[in-house]
């Protein structure tokens, strides 16, 4: 007799129970991919924030350099999470990768260009001692970071709002249509623009918290002043965006209603947001930074919890939604992947612990030490 469940392709891989194979694997990979992307947002988030911040907080070229140096040794390692997360997304949910990447074609290409420009801006600024060269590099870094933050926020907004999936589960979105949230929206509509602004402010605050941790003196004072203004803006924007989300997608609360324990996530978000302010008032820069990490991570976790098991929802017909079950790779692939993923991430953690240990405490923004970490 052939096994009943169709998705089971490699039947010689016997797993404990059918439940584990059919129900748990997609959930595990949903969590792993979400965790990798959240790691990217938290880690590269402060790099982007510093990029935005250095445009208006730094007053001299020395101060600008100090700000860039705070992220210099880490930003590229942080960006690897995007690549590893993207690769893992492709591996675990090929349909989501295929449909999402081709549907968000234009914004993704723009993101690629911005990533290239930002990277060059950071790396090349110090290569030639000339005001014009520095101006171009800093401009690429600052403007690239600003637009990337807005695009990431808008991307999340698009996922929450949903896209007009066609019967073959593909779609294509223009950059904008009439800025209305309807069945045929653009990448940018009033809702996703709000998400983009939320992300810009949240990441800039995150960057300010990081920079406060890494700088001293006059610059530190200005960074912290910026952080307190940004915090007020973020509180207002968080409330507005939550209200807007419930207005356009009331079903985002369904999972929460079914499993009220999930309400702990928004509670953590609120606590982290308040904690950020309290900590930096107290002068606890490390605590403030950890709170803004938690704010970003749990905002994403909250969105993921609301979406599950959907990965991309349709604005036209809910039956067309891309879910963890229809987008997933085969059982064998996901099972064998779990083995190497665990080994690979354990190794990666080992490398970074070793490298950070090697250079612990030596990275100071004001020294002329060329070695870093």
């Amino acid at each position, binding site marked *: 007799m052939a096994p009943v469940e169709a998705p089971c392709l490699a039947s010689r891989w016997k797993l404990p129970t059918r439940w584990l194979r059919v129900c748990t694997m997609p959930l595990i990979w949903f969590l792993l991919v979400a965790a990798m992307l959240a790691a990217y947002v938290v880690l590269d988030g402060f790099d982007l924030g510093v990029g935005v911040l250095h445009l208006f907080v730094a007053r001299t070229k020395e101060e600008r350099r100090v700000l860039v140096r705070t992220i210099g*040794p880490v930003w590229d390692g942080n960006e690897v999470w995007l690549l590893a997360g*993207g690769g893992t997304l*492709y591996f675990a949910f*090929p349909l989501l*990768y295929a449909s999402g990447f081709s549907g968000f074609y234009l914004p993704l290409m723009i993101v690629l260009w911005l990533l290239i420009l930002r990277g060059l801006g950071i790396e090349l600024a110090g290569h030639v001692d000339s005001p014009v060269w520095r101006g171009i590099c800093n401009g690429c870094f600052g403007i690239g970071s600003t637009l990337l933050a807005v695009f990431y926020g808008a991307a999340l907004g698009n996922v929450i709002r949903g896209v007009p999936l066609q019967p073959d589960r593909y779609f294509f979105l223009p950059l904008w249509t009439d800025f209305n949230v309807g069945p045929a929206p653009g990448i940018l509509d009033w809702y996703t623009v709000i998400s983009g602004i939320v992300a810009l402010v949240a990441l800039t605050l995150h960057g300010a918290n990081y920079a406060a941790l890494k700088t001293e003196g006059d610059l530190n004072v200005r960074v912290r002043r910026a952080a307190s203004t940004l915090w007020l803006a973020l509180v207002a924007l968080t409330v507005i965006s939550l209200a807007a989300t419930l207005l356009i997608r009331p079903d985002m609360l369904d999972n929460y209603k079914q499993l009220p324990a999930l309400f702990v996530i928004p509670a953590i978000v609120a606590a982290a947001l308040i904690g950020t302010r309290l900590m930096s008032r107290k002068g606890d820069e490390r605590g403030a930074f950890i709170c803004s990490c938690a704010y970003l991570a749990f905002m994403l976790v909250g969105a993921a919890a609301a979406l599950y098991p959907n990965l991309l929802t349709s604005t036209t017909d809910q039956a067309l939604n891309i879910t963890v079950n229809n987008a997933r790779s085969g059982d064998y*692939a996901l099972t064998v992947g779990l083995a190497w993923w665990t080994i690979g991430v354990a190794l*990666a953690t080992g490398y970074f612990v070793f490298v950070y240990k090697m250079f612990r405490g030596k990275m100071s923004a004001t020294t002329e030490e060329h070695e870093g970490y």
Partner: protein
Amino acid sequence: MDDALLMHRIHFGFTVTFHYLFPQLTMGLSLLIVILKTLYLRTDNPVYNRAARFWAKMFGINFAMGVVTGIPMEFQFGTNWSRFSQATGGVIGQPLAMEGVFSFFLESAFLGLFLHGERRLGRVGHWWAAFAVFAGSWLSGFFVVVTDAWMQHPIAFERTAEGLFQITSFWGLLTNPWALIQYSHTMCGAVITGSFVMTAIGAYYLLEDKFLEDGRAFLRTGVVVGVIACIVQILPTGDLHGRYMAFHQPAATAAMEGLFRTEYGAPMVLLGQPDPETQRIDNPVVANKVLSFLIYGVPTAQVKGLNEFPKSDWPTSIPLLFFSYHIMAGLGTLFIAVMGLAAFLLWRGVLYRTRWMLWILMLCLPLPYIANTAGWLTAETGRQPWLVYGLMRVQDGYSKYVHAGNSLFTLLGFMGLYSVLAVLFLFLAHRLITHGPGGGALPGVTLETPNAVA
């Protein structure tokens, strides 16, 4: 061929061709740097360490370029080739995700340590950092080749009712014979690029009469490694690759060789221009029976011509395939002659004085880039009209909803941006070469970040 398909093909072709100019050097150099560090440990001669430092800087510039142009590659599977990605993600998602998890983290963690941690790590520790960077970049190459090899020679999969490919054997995929052969051939090609670049800069310094001690070290290291790599590139890797291809992709082999009709004792066309319309070679220069001998070891063996295959299965651009293959093979043969001669002069102890040889070595700088590019063109145009050989055609794989206009728009964007990158790269490489090995940081350079883009 419709417009959108053509645009998507040019899009991928352009970005991947530009991208591969950089990894071929970094993968080759990473091995050469490990060799230089080993020589330094064993001989205690500081010139090798100075050489390793100089090439580490060159590695850094190229690595940064390789990364910024490599990120789009990972995106483009989904953006421009979405139906292909959906169908094959169950198989090639595996190596592509493994590349991120196993090699990108390894490289980004150790590159900074390698480039700027020499004092902290000590001699042996720094050797290990160089080795970690080498391992990371070669591992990265392996996962990419496994992906391509599966498209060339799909194994270890089954198809679902909807036609999706699903992996059935993890180790089967990773030990695909095609992948192992292609990987050794590709990496050997990268070492050729690395050693030709090293000898070219060494020869340049000797001809310019500066950095003489360093130039000599570059020459002897590059020539010794280069001559070995050039031989291995033809025998056994190139030979095996060619025969394996003749066996599994006979239509591609026939087109590569310009063999329109099946022949016993098939000749090898050395020069000529294939005309797919009239199905003949113009201005042919041929070596009789050589092709049959190379493939089967028997001069009279039968080799299948293109006439055995339906026209719909012919590679889409036979002249491009023919020329790519001939340029690759011709240059590969030339490399053996150049490096063999240089190795002979080195052995006789006169290489550093033989100015004509130094001129040749210097002027050979662009040739391995051309050969490597032509090699990939041979592999990928030979795969046409298939995305997954024999199973999925190119026209079934591209993103249907991304029309030709959007694809051209972003292609033009990449062309503009990559032109800027090319200028920047040449500027930085030129500064480094002019500044030369030894000494500290480049004038005016304040390293903003200890590690280059990862």
